[in-house]
């Protein structure tokens, strides 16, 4: 069997898996982004209860391993009568986990916006919400984008774990094909290359151009 005929026989499976991985990626990215923003702002709150809740969230999801979180959601929640679709459980776990890392990035970026900017906005008597939205967050975004790009790659890699709860993503298809064909180099190798192309030629360039656009908006380039 040649690699070409392997691909023509099983290429469809890889494509199916890819689509599921892409969906998992987008769903968990959306969830992680929202969580990062919300909890990142909460981390900055002066209200001890609000801040405490955010700290617990961040420390909990950073401190326990993603795979543990995934299995817990998948195997333990049903025991309490909550049964979630594997697909849903998958991006929920990934989103919750990466969101915790993202929250710290948001917090750090907002904190590193120079003090003068806060004071200038204050001097214009902007409301706190407006100040945050119009002045601080746009600048924080530029600061955090490079680190955020790395986190997005981590997120993409993390989605591979959902295969372990039987979400039929790229990783899952590769595993299945491996156990039916025993062509390990080709199955796992192909999947690795697809992930690599996804990360290197889709995600990274997108993040780069986003950085570029943001930098231009800030008047630097």
């Amino acid at each position: 069997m040649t690699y070409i005929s392997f691909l023509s026989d099983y290429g469809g499976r890889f494509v199916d898996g890819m689509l599921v991985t892409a969906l998992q990626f987008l769903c968990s990215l959306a969830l992680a982004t929202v969580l990062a923003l919300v909890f990142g702002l909460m981390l900055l709150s002066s209200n001890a209860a609000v801040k405490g809740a955010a700290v617990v969230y961040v420390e909990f999801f950073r401190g326990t391993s993603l795979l543990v979180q995934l299995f817990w959601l998948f195997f333990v929640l049903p025991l309490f009568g909550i049964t979630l679709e594997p697909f849903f459980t998958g991006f929920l776990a990934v989103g919750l986990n990466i969101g915790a890392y993202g929250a710290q990035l948001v917090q750090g970026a907002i904190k590193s916006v120079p003090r003068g900017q806060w004071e200038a906005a204050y001097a214009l008597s902007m409301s706190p919400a407006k100040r945050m939205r119009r002045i601080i967050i746009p600048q924080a975004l530029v600061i955090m984008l490079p680190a955020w790009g790395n986190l997005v790659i981590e997120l993409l890699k993390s989605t591979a774990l959902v295969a372990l709860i039987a979400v039929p993503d790229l990783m899952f298809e590769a595993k299945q094909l491996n156990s039916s064909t025993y062509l390990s180099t080709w199955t796992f190798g192909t999947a690795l290359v697809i992930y690599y192309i996804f990360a290197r030629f889709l995600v990274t360039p997108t993040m780069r151009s986003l950085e570029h656009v943001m930098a231009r908006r800030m008047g630097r380039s």
Partner: protein
Amino acid sequence: MHWDWQFTAEILPRLLWATLNTLMAAGLGYAIAAVLGLVFAIAQRTPFRPLTVTVRELVEFLRSTPLVLQIFFVYYVGPEYGVSLSPWVAGMIAIGLHYAAYLSEVYRGGIESVPKGQWEACTAINLTTAQTYRRIILPQALPLSVAGMGNYLISIFKDTPMLSVIGVAELMQAATAIGGQNYRYLEPYTIVGVVFLVISLFSAASIRGFEAWIRRKLGMY
């Protein structure tokens, strides 16, 4: 569903025992990554273009594809070429390679932050390249790097559950086995979560302390 304390007491020793395996896997993986990462970092600085480009691309590849898939790849591909790796060996190779890619970036940062004048002074007293690295550059670069390496130890620790996919008898695998035998997942998975949380929080604190100490020491220079 309720928490069964008696069951907890029964399974706890076995899980704690497996925790030792988890810690050992993290330590071994880290040691391999620390050495290999240095090799990757220095290889990228040789004047031999094909080598630097290849290693650069390899590092990118390792960093942007899922570890769990790499673990499968290393474990299953060996036998196709007549080399059977035990789960432990395959797992350590995969984790070591994956994190070597990350650590090589940390080393690279450390090496690049040694001033150019140090290299020139080495040329002026005619040290060989190997002597320059060993005697002058690395003694300055490594302490700088160490201050950024601690987090990866915790990351490796949190990634060890992935080794369970090829049957390494670490904590996650033990919990899954217990869960399967007793049809109870609540206690084993929750205990795993708690163990991870406790160890990560504790080691994060000690690493922060250690790094602060290193930085203070470096401040003397």
